[in-house]
């Protein structure tokens, strides 16, 4: 076992340089082309799994693995997140102490807007995720911020996603600052980290639908569309960035800060990759 661990830690470091894919994709602000990246990502999965319709990637691993899909469909008959949507709706509609509500903070009263997040906020000069916007709304109205990973914020986010179902993701990159954030997220996605020396891409591009112990990692394409998710392992609802932290721990890396710049940029990149797919959150996952 010790040998296996050592091999994972050191030999995999040694193999990084031998990865022969790449590298016409932009890695500088001048050369990065988000649309080309998105096209390449979608093309990669379509070539690898030609039997899977692009639109089905919103279902994650269940688009690729029939037995898992069957079990998941059984779960979806009585969705475990159903009560969370109801709780989220109640929280969303509850007025703040100043008489205002979430609806006052968002376009279209916060209904049917999930597909526009994360978005580049020019006035703040940063990527704003839906959860960040929820907490910014609270603070602006004199309320305390909610915890980032689960509970009320996940429920509100779930309700907002639910009202956006079937809306098409349309994340915009309006200027060079936004493009820089996208590039930073792209780099994070492909950068190996942790003692196991693995990147997001290792599991969710090359490793998609390849067993890691007893689990089948899902494709990154469509990953974000079904968050927040009720994960059986958690026994509750959780946000996308909760999952990011869990992934980083899984590879034995110290997780980056939830809703910090790195994770927000990562979410920006990852969501852009799923532009054109529909919102189907909240979802249920193992």
């Amino acid at each position, binding site marked *: 076992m010790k040998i296996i661990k050592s091999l994972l830690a050191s030999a995999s470091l040694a193999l990084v*340089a031998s*990865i022969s894919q790449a*590298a016409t994709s932009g890695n500088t602000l001048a050369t990065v082309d988000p649309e080309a990246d998105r096209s390449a*990502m979608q093309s990669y999965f379509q070539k690898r799994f030609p039997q899977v319709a692009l639109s089905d990637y919103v279902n994650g691993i269940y688009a690729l693995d029939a037995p898992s899909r069957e079990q998941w469909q059984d779960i979806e008959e009585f969705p475990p997140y159903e009560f969370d949507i109801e709780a989220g709706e109640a929280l969303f509609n509850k007025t703040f102490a100043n008489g205002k509500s979430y609806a006052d903070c968002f376009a279209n009263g916060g209904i049917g807007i999930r597909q526009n997040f994360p978005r580049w906020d020019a006035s703040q000069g940063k990527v704003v995720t839906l959860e960040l916007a929820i907490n910014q709304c609270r603070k602006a109205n004199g309320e305390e911020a909610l915890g980032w990973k689960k509970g009320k914020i996940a429920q509100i986010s779930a309700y907002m996603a639910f009202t956006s179902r079937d809306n098409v993701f349309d994340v915009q990159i309006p200027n060079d600052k936004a493009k820089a954030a996208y590039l930073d997220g*792209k780099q994070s996605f492909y*950068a*190996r*980290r942790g003692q196991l020396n693995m990147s997001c891409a290792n599991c969710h*591009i090359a490793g998609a639908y390849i067993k890691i112990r007893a689990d089948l990692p899902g494709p990154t394409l469509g990953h974000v569309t079904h968050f927040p998710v009720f994960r059986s392992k958690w026994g509750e609802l959780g946000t996308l960035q909760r999952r990011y932290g869990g992934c980083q721990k899984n590879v034995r*890396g110290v997780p980056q800060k939830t809703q910090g710049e790195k994770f927000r940029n990562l979410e920006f990149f990852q969501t852009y990759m799923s532009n054109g797919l529909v919102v189907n959150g909240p979802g249920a996952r193992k």
Partner: protein
Amino acid sequence: MKKTISLVAALMMVSGVVAAHPFNEAFNEQRAMYGKGHSFTWNGQTYITDHPEEIAAAVVANAANATALLAAAKDQYTQVLAVDFGWTLTKNLLKSAGKALETGEFRKSMDLSAQAQYHSRMGIAQYHQSQAEWIMAVPE
């Protein structure tokens, strides 16, 4: 008798070539197969499979040395956290090293500090490598 050359720390620390260098590949393979303290021959010379931190810890086990090693390991950990590439086990290794130092288990403390410092050094190397090579993994 062939000259035994300790693993040169500088060689391991050159960012971007940590893994790609043939010597490092040979070293990693030997280390994985045989653990520390093993001799192997590469390009006609004999090396041992010890990490620089283990070599630094192979001194008399006493309070002064254990304290110095722990301080160096903590310093390295601060550096790896600064680049956001820390590994999860390192914090507990440092904690255990500190406890061992307090209870006078100097050898144990020094070994744990060496391990923690190695983790941090590799995390920093990983950071530099990731900066340089992440683009290699992007599908065309």
